[in-house]
């Protein structure tokens, strides 16, 4: 990544996350990074490479392999006024920290007004042949828990902006960064202060025929589908949710009011996933705007498989999304 003033030319999604951590560490002395192998090694994916050397071992802390203690320690630091950013090496390991997140972090403010300004970075998603325990998308589980914010960036700029906004937020924030985007997404990156708060969706491509509602790792695929289908004359709108909690339903409804047709796409499994929530709300609140049934494309209700043919069938592909789009357009 070449840094030109505050614009980094041709940055990857991974470099954008590192840049956000770097800039927050520079800007806020309360910020502390905590995680397994994040210091000397620079993280399993090298997201934190160079940070220990620059900021020292009191800001970039390598810990034992113990996710409950790691997240609990983050809570303890946050309630004392530090701004911990905890890295879980893989989002899959969040199951080991579930209790600290759900029992403690999510409920402290409601119970006693104790704010927990902590970010937990969760490298999530499949496509790398990593199998059932290094490929999951557990964001839907946590979007169901009142008191946790859930963030899923799908662009290089959002990897940076949403991480800084997550740090600025006074609540526990789960930041799901998609591993398949780490080095595959590139764009110029504007390094800037945290701007608008979490909770606003973004229209990534405007259209009037159908709305693709998505987030995170599925955003590039949805944009590709929109490109392909729009070539045939039907202009698709692509709405990037960016955050699942808060959920910007107003943006979804506004888009559906325009297009009348919607396909919701996520890599998380289908049943009781975020798509179900959006579909339910649309049926209650946008019923008369809909010209076709709400469609969902998601991973099937199965664990994430390892072998290439299985994983390719598991993760929503451009072809599967496109098929759902055509069905909804013709409905």
């Amino acid at each position: 990544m070449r840094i030109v003033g505050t614009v980094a030319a041709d940055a990857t999604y991974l470099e954008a996350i590192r840049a956000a951590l770097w800039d927050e560490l520079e800007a806020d002395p309360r910020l502390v990074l905590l995680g397994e192998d994040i210091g000397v090694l620079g993280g399993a994916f090298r997201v934190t490479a160079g940070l220990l050397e620059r900021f020292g071992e009191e800001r970039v802390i390598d810990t034992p392999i113990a996710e409950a203690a790691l997240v609990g320690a983050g809570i303890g630091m946050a309630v004392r006024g530090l701004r911990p950013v905890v890295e879980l090496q893989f989002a899959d390991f969040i199951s080991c920290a579930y209790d600290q997140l759900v029992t403690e972090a999510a409920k402290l403010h409601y119970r006693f007004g104790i704010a927990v300004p902590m970010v937990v970075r969760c490298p999530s998603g499949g496509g790398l042949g990593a199998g059932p325990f290094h490929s999951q998308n557990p964001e839907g589980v946590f979007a169901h828990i009142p008191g946790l914010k859930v963030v899923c960036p799908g662009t290089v700029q959002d990897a940076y902006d949403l991480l800084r906004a997550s740090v600025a937020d006074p609540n526990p924030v789960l930041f799901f960064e998609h591993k398949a985007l780490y080095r595959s997404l590139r764009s110029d990156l504007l390094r800037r202060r945290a701007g608008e708060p979490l909770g606003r969706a973004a229209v990534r491509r405007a259209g009037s025929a159908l709305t693709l509602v998505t987030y995170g790792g599925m955003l590039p695929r949805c944009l590709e589908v929109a490109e392909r289908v729009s070539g045939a004359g039907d202009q698709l709108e692509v709405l990037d949710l960016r955050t699942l909690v808060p959920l910007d339903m107003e943006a979804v409804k506004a888009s559906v009011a325009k297009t009348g047709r919607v396909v919701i796409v996520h890599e998380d499994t289908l049943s009781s996933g975020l798509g179900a929530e959006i579909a339910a709300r649309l049926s209650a609140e946008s019923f008369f705007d809909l010209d076709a049934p709400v469609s969902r494309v998601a991973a099937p209700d199965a664990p994430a498989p390892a072998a290439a043919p299985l994983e390719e069938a598991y993760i929503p592909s451009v072809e599967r999304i496109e098929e759902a789009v055509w069905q909804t357009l013709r409905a």
Partner: protein
Amino acid sequence: MADSARLTPAAPALHSELGLEMHRWMVLSRVLEDRLFALWKQGRIRGRLLTGRGQEAIPTAAALAVNPDDFMCIMHRDMAAHLIRGTTAETVMLHYFGKATGPSGGRDGDIHFAEWERRNFPMVSHLPDSFPIALGLALTSLLRKDRAVTVAFCGEGSTSVGAWHETLNFASVFRCPNVFVVENNQYAYSTPADRQYRGRLVDRALGYGIRGECLDGNDVLAMHEAMVSAIARAREGEGPTLIEAMTMRMDGHAGHDDAAYVPDELKALWRARDPIERLELRLREEGATPALLERNWSAAREEVDAAVESAWGAPDPTPEDLLARGVFADPA
């Protein structure tokens, strides 16, 4: 018991002032919890009712050994720690009655509370969930070099849980200023200690490379001495200490539980080791008159009477309060 000879210790000379202060708090805790139990039986308190009857020496000794700048992760047998750290009997009652003006405004109940502004961290049901958080509180002290110590309590049942191990290991690696107090009250609900662990809990300290001490948790003076020295070591950068305080849960797990599974002989044995009675014996030997000690009991009853009366009339939360504030903190 690790050492029954310690039950009538030839302890260092009692400073009567400290002894009387200990007595005052243990008595207030006992009177307050007995009243809570009565109110629960009357249906004036909802949910469960957990008490620390018989264990009052442990939180009393610990809370009198810390500084106001130190942190405590208090559990459900530790009412005295709240009181010593400044939470009033009235605040406790407001909480148990679920009042709008209580520390959680009716959102949490029973012994799940703490006044965080007093550096007390509120417990949850999942024990020892406060342990990893105690680790973070102590890590913050290391980073800020503020010399604050964090004391965290649990029962022997908690030592079976993974987070207990994760915390002690992690705290040891970083030499965190923590004191971990296991109140070994012999039963986790109906599960006796011999279904919970083998060997001695205090020996686990060796495995973590930290200091461990097992002592009579019903001897408030010995307990205080142990806490003072463990806290001093933590403050001086010498790392965490594991304290195993032997005691006995004298009520059931909670109000509904008659603890019929506890053998009568065991109950009788520990009834004779009541920490308040033992302290009173000691204080009388050192010249305290029965009238002086009785004054603490009557003062506690008056304080609790007044607390009940005042808290009962406080406003209840309204249905509008359910979502009126606070699932999330507002961005500044």
